[in-house]
């Protein structure tokens, strides 16, 4: 069953995470605190990436287009 081996593999990955960050040794409330902090940080980073990365990429793309585009005498329109 692909799902079973996939589930086992994900569980094994979770065990490795626990061992590396030493949450294997923590008491349940410490684990809760640790995971809450980590997940909060992760969510904040992902949200920031979601908001800002498309804008930055399109700005960079515009910049490079302008740089190379001026050689071909194209009209450059600024897209907002």
């Amino acid at each position, binding site marked *: 069953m692909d799902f079973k081996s996939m589930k086992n593999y994900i569980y*094994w990955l979770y*065990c*490795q995470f*626990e*061992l*590396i*960050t*030493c*949450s*294997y*040794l*923590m*008491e349940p409330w*410490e684990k809760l605190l*640790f995971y809450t902090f980590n997940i909060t940080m992760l969510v904040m980073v992902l949200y920031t990436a979601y908001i800002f990365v498309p804008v930055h990429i399109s700005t960079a793309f515009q910049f490079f287009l302008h740089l190379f585009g001026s050689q071909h005498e194209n009209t450059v329109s600024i897209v907002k």
Partner: protein
Amino acid sequence: MERPERAAAAPDAQPRANGCSSAAHGALRNGYVRGLPAPDTKINHIVHNGGLYKRPFNEAFEETPMLVAVLTYVGYGVLTLFGYLRDFMRQWKIEKCQNATEREEQKDFVPLYQDFENFYNRNLYMRIRDSWNRPICSVPGAKVDMMERVSHDYNWTFTYTGKVIKDIINMGSYNYLGFAQKAGTCQEAAAKVLSQYGAGVCSTRQEMGNLDKHEELEKLVARFLGVESAMAYGMGFATNSMNIPALVGKGCLILSDELNHASLVLGARLSGATIRIFKHNNMQSLEKLLKDAIVHGQPRTRRPWKKILILVEGIYSMEGSIVRLPEVIALKKKYKSYLYLDEAHSIGALGPSGRGVVEYFGLNPEDVDVMMGTFTKSFGAAGGYIGGKKELIDYLRTYSHSAVYATSMSPPVVEQIITSMKCIMGEDGTTVGKARVQQLAENTRYFRRRLKEMGFIIYGNEDSPVVPLMLYMPAKIGAFGREMLKRNIGVVVVGFPATPIIESRARFCLSAAHTKEMLDTALKEINEVGDLLQLKYSRHRLVPILDRPFDETTYEETED
């Protein structure tokens, strides 16, 4: 730094080995060479060094993988943060403080308990404490019974469930030749002596505690080691710590290996002599120190040192490495110093007939000035001995603290040693002793080879029955101990402060009592646990240490 006189003996592509380091390679761990010159370079174990080593000396310490080191520090960082949090909560009484504190009335006095020093103890050791001090309830042979215990408050207190876990394969006891038995010739002889002499001696050796059994034991030990005379003491740790002060004092120099045991360090400090440390098993470092000592003498007065004593061990139990005894003896003779060899783990375990590391290298026992060892490991008893010239031992009988003040050895223990030693020497008329020594060597080779093939990082010499398996991360220390116990195998795991902080390990001690089936079962479980915890760090980049081309008259200086 090139060595022109060795260019003929060693081709350019020869990797630097045996503890040499060079600026080009950066910081090297002693005894380890990083980076093979070319994959097709033939590595051969020809003896280059003019016959000092009669057999190849294969010792390897694979380097810690960078990612593993970083993750280990991350783990310790997280635990430290949580340690601070818990300490804060204990300080502000949010959580009950379960370790020792003063009474309320004494809070304004000078503090009794140094809180920060025990930070590691409170916040890390307590979490994994259930892997140590496990109570066993049978003889620690190849299989052992253990009392089951549980903890309901995260290892601060333990309660016994009453159940006994039976037949745990014992990979942790120092039972190298399998003499920890409850039936057999040793046990019968000890029982007979117990009924004859009783258990206690009620005196010291100097007063009324010198039994004929002790005299018999000492003559036997002297014959076993090949020295003129020997003396036995009741405790191995006390043998070191109480006899080194009798041999050296102020105005003497002690050159001690980096990784010497606590008993040697304590004895050296108690003696009041100047102590200088050389890098682990590194003969260049030792020679540099010897040269400096002879040339410069004592620090301010420039007088020559009264005595120079080199302290080494036969097998280092945390690394599994064997001392480079031929080179140490050559250096000792060249610079006219004395050698103190602590064979706690190597007596009975090395050498074709179990006479220790001196026999393993084929050297003359008279070259070692003080041969010390213990009866705890290979003989299944307790105690230590010192062997050497008759004048030395006669001096120690009068001036050693242990001889004058310590209670003498208990007679059944003495009989156990006598019987087991006679068995090893073959004097009891059977070949049991010889068979055990050979079985141990076979077990060692087999176990080490299989573990290396599986991909674990194993430290130490190929022939040493102490096998350290690297774990590195703190959570894996606790996890390994618990998982192996679940699978009915008892192992000893070691962490800081017995080892450097990131190099925690599991230490297996092989025994002649282990059958091949037991070893196979153990290896299967270790394999499983290794996959579960992802312990197979080895990238097979280890370079077996070659016999370095040795020129008897010069050791070139290297920057370390």
